[in-house]
């Protein structure tokens, strides 16, 4: 397994606020990496900087052999990274299938001439894209709502559409930002299984999660962030037993005693 994504000494400061401090992370092809940490630890910022949405204050990001530090978002995604968001970002006025087909934007090579003349080459590519999108939606159990307006769907299904869209570009790396947010335990378990299935399709996955059951269950390795720093890294078992991690979430022992524990 080689290194797919390399984050090197990443700093991100917003004025005086240190969102990321000296973060070093390696993501290997084929692995599922969990990222956990208390709220405000810098997890989403990590995604933002890695994907180019925010420029880092210092440090570099390498993906698949290329340096992608400060490259614009759309370029980074064309190289093979796809992402979902903490607050779902769907194309609300478009149907589910259209949402997914947008994800294929960079692979679908069509020309203006092909479009306006409905050339055979264009039409067959469109059809191919359509079928692929349907397959992905089928895989996620969304085949019944394919033509539904995406903003009409219940929350859990919208999440899945977002994931479908991310998958449609055949990404090498999938970044999921709190995918189980807002889900009940049942749905969260289904999500776990889903991510396991996705992994078989190919991409490496990095998951930001608060749901410990989910993240401990699916991750090969876990990285723990607190106040922008990586405080721990290892397998789920290792991380669960590290004192500094427990401290980050629950506070120091004295404080727990003070609240009557």
């Amino acid at each position, binding site marked *: 397994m080689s290194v797919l994504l390399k984050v090197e000494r990443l700093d991100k400061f917003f004025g005086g606020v240190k969102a990321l401090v000296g973060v070093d992370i390696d993501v290997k092809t084929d692995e599922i990496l969990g990222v956990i940490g208390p709220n405000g630890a810098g997890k*989403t910022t990590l995604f*933002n900087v890695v994907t180019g949405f925010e420029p880092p204050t210092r440090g570099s990001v390498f993906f698949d052999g290329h340096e992608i530090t400060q490259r614009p978002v759309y370029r980074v995604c064309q190289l093979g990274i796809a992402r979902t968001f*903490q607050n779902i970002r769907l194309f609300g006025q478009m149907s589910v299938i259209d949402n997914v087909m947008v994800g294929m934007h960079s692979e679908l090579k069509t020309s203006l001439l092909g479009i306006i003349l409905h050339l055979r080459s264009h039409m067959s590519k469109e059809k191919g894209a359509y079928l692929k999108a349907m397959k992905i939606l089928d895989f996620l159990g969304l085949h019944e709502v394919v033509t539904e307006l995406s903003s009409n769907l219940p929350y859990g299904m919208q999440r899945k559409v977002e994931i479908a869209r991310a998958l449609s570009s055949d990404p090498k790396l999938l970044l999921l930002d709190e995918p189980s947010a807002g889900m009940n335990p049942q749905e969260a378990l289904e999500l776990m299984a889903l991510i396991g299935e996705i992994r078989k399709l190919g991409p490496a996955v990095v998951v930001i999660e608060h749901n410990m059951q989910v993240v401990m269950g699916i991750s090969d390795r876990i990285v723990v962030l607190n106040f922008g720093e990586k405080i721990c890294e290892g397998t789920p078992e290792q991380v669960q037993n590290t004192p500094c991690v427990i401290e980050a979430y629950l506070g120091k022992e004295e404080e727990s005693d003070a609240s009557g524990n």
Partner: protein
Amino acid sequence: MFLQYLINGISIGSVYALIAIGYNMVYGILELLNFAHGDVYAVGCFVTLALIAAKQNVVVAILGGFAAGFLINLIVERFAYRPVRYSGRVTPTISAVGIAYIMRNVILLVWGPETFAFEIGIKNTHVKVGNIVFGTLQIYILLIAIALMVLIQLLLKRTKQGQAVLAISQSIPTAALMGIPVNRVIAAVYGLGAGLGVLGGILFCAYYESIFLGIGFMLGTMKAWMSSIVGGIGSLKGAVIGALILGLTESFVSGYISTAYRDAFVWGFFIVFVLIKPRGLFPAQISEKV
């Protein structure tokens, strides 16, 4: 000549400033487009005109106009803007355009498309210093604009009501959760914005000694909008400075380049400015979270 253009620029800029303050109250503080600002306050100005024609006292006429603008905006806000407040950016904008048209039609029906004389007893006496001419009214306008700006800034920062407005500009749901009567405050801001616009409009008409239905849109909405953007969205001080800059630009372009194409050049400069400094000169900080 340069000094004359400078004086003219500052004068007209001050008028714009007065109107821009009213506009910016809603646009800058609440980030809601106020496309109908100009046309609403134009109605108020015409009410003042009507009251003067009905032989009312100047102060009464001005207050009447202010009240008219205030009330109209309250009603408009309640029935046309509030229902669509959360419907994206396009919908409320179109609503406002609709209101602007309705207001314009009202003026057209009641008063007509002609230009009327506007005499409210505030005489613009001309003072000559060297070979520069300026009017006392111009000075009053500038002073009033600055005074208002300072006053409103103080009110916003120091009073409970002002704090409420600022809170709403940050986050409406949070403000509501804090117990702030959001709807009432927003309505009041709209009303006050219109009232201030009426005052600005009245002074504008007094300065040019005439009034017609066009003073609304181009002057009020457009120039006020431009001033707010140049000065920086969310900043009253910015609106005033932006207005002055706008006035100066108009004056110098008119004087040195061309009167016919004046607006074309001003728009051109404005577009270039917006591209270089999209947030304006003194922007308040707002960014989108992902």
